[in-house]
């Protein structure tokens, strides 16, 4: 109808479309398909920050215990614009006891056991219903060693990576163990294989890791504990260990004394935009305080605010810094229920997220829609460096996918 629109201009429009439209509009014409499927386009699209930042909320449905995935646009419309994701492949048939271990650039990494009890990480793009399974390499048995697994997308190459770190669980064993086998191994999707041990080792073998990690701008962060062996026994302190996904090197961040000495509180780690956040929760459940390391000012933590209340859990943060809080309600004779709200400490506004009050295992992650994994074949599992296509098993409900 109109004059011929040069493809240059068509591509200006294509790159601003949302993910679902892109999937549909691959069928518009061959040039459209070539562009959308091309790696440069996929990578550029997925690193664009003009796409709306969202929050991914996951929780277990109180009725059927299925995990529900909902994302909410984290902008002026919060929390009205909700998008539900349905991903039949992730039913409990295929992945048992799974939990999300990290999100990066809109990809979600789950970790659990496959139907034959091998430990497996599954990297998912919820918006295009693509997932890639990665079987873990040999894991240590027994209790001498512990492992942590981290996930992130390398900011330079947009290559998803999984990092597995082995550490010594018990300080009693520290002296007797001279080196840790397979200390650090890294899986990169581009190579489809685990690589390790890496050239970079842990700063010290005495470091013990907490399970949860956050990834900020291509660097993974874990809370960790270290100890100095003094004459009067071990002197424990908490610190943060970082792993740069691009250079694959470790770093350390020291915490202020009020956070490092763990006498009567638990620490957990989170982030607000590109700043690292440490949450300090008092063991007697009397409240939380939130500390932030401002982006660009390394090693200096500022206490942002304190909440003095039991039955409150900070689950995550909006991009403007407002915490998302779970407020537990006790119902005598019934299960506990919860409100989920976002709170603005400055204006004291509270926004109810309108999630089912009997939802369990509520988690919040920063999220965005992405095209990453579009170029992966369906149902791929990487096992010992070989990609095998998992046979499509119908789920119990008989859904087709």
């Amino acid at each position, binding site marked *: *109808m*109109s*004059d*011929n*629109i*040069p*493809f*240059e*201009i*068509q*591509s*200006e*429009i294509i*790159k*601003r*479309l*949302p993910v*679902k*439209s892109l*999937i*549909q509009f*691959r*069928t*518009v*014409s*061959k040039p*459209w398909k070539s562009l959308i499927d091309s790696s*440069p*386009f996929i990578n*550029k699209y997925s690193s*664009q920050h*003009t796409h709306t930042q969202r929050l991914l909320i996951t929780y277990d449905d109180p009725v059927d215990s299925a995990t529900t995935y909902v994302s909410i646009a984290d902008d002026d419309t919060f929390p009205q614009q909700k998008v539900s994701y349905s991903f039949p492949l992730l039913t409990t048939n295929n992945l048992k006891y799974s939990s999300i271990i990290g999100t990066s650039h809109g990809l979600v990494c789950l970790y659990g056991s496959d139907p034959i009890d091998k430990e497996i990480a599954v990297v998912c793009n919820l918006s*295009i*219903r693509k997932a890639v399974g990665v079987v873990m390499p040999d894991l240590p048995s027994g209790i001498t060693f512990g492992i942590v697994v981290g996930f992130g997308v390398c900011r330079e190459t947009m290559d998803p990576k999984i990092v597995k770190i082995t550490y010594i669980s018990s300080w009693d064993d520290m002296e007797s163990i001279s080196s840790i086998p397979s200390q650090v191994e890294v899986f990169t999707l581009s190579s489809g294989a685990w690589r390790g041990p890496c050239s970079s080792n842990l700063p010290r073998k005495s470091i013990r890791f907490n399970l949860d990690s956050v990834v900020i701008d291509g660097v993974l962060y874990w809370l960790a504990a270290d100890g100095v062996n003094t004459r009067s026994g071990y002197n424990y302190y908490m610190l943060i260990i970082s792993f740069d996904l691009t250079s694959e090197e470790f770093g350390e961040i020291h915490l202020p004394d009020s956070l490092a000495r763990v006498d009567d509180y638990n620490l957990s780690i989170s982030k607000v935009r590109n*700043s690292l956040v440490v949450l300090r929760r008092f063991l007697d459940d009397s*409240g939380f305080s939130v500390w*932030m390391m401002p982006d660009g000012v390394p090693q200096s933590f*500022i*206490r*942002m*605010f*304190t*909440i*003095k*209340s039991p*039955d*409150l859990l900070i689950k995550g943060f909006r991009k*403007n*810094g407002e915490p998302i*809080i779970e*407020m537990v*309600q006790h119902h005598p004779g019934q299960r506990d229920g919860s*409100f989920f*709200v976002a*709170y603005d*400490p*400055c204006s*004291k506004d*509270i926004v109810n997220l309108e999630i089912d009050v009997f939802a369990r295992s509520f988690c919040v992650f920063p999220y965005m829609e992405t095209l990453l994994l579009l170029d992966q074949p369906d149902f791929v599992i990487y096992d010992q460096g070989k990609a095998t296509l998992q046979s499509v098993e119908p789920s119990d409900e008989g859904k087709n*996918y």
Partner: protein
Amino acid sequence: MDPMDINNLLTKEGDKTSSSHRVTSSLMLPNWRDDFLTKTVYHTMAEVNETDQAPTVDPKTPNLDDSTTSSQPKPEQITTINVAIPIPDMGPQLQVVVEEFILKSGSDDDEVRTAARNDLRDFIEREEIGITTLLVVVKYAHEVKNAYLLDAFCERVVDLIKDKKVVEVREILGIVNDFTPEEEQALRDEHPWAFED
């Protein structure tokens, strides 16, 4: 516990780091139009053809490096209406708005540029500009390399087509379907969930 109780429970310590908002003192906006007109030189067509050639563009390799964020045009970049590329017919009202926007986007004053952008966005939202006209502006913005103008009008086109069917998108953009029916169905089968209505 009433959610409102939380107000009593929070103590805020220190300053919350927020995204830095520049504090601008209120300025008297210079009389930009008069200033501008005295600085503007309209080139004759002959001078323009020699010195002001738009770089050729290869249609096969879309310039993926074009700034996706609306970067401000540098003040020295656009201070003249580019007579080599005459503004196409887009209806008198829109033409005035686009011309004003281009003039103001060349201003040195940050507040003038910001106000111009807001005005443009407001105008686009208020008026229901048809897709044909939007595409005329998009083409023009692309040719004169005004990133913000391109972004604002492309976003509007995207809003209008993102929920449309594939056949409608082809018609609107004048695109010929070069897939066979079998090829097209095979592609749809790759992501059946996206085509469920």
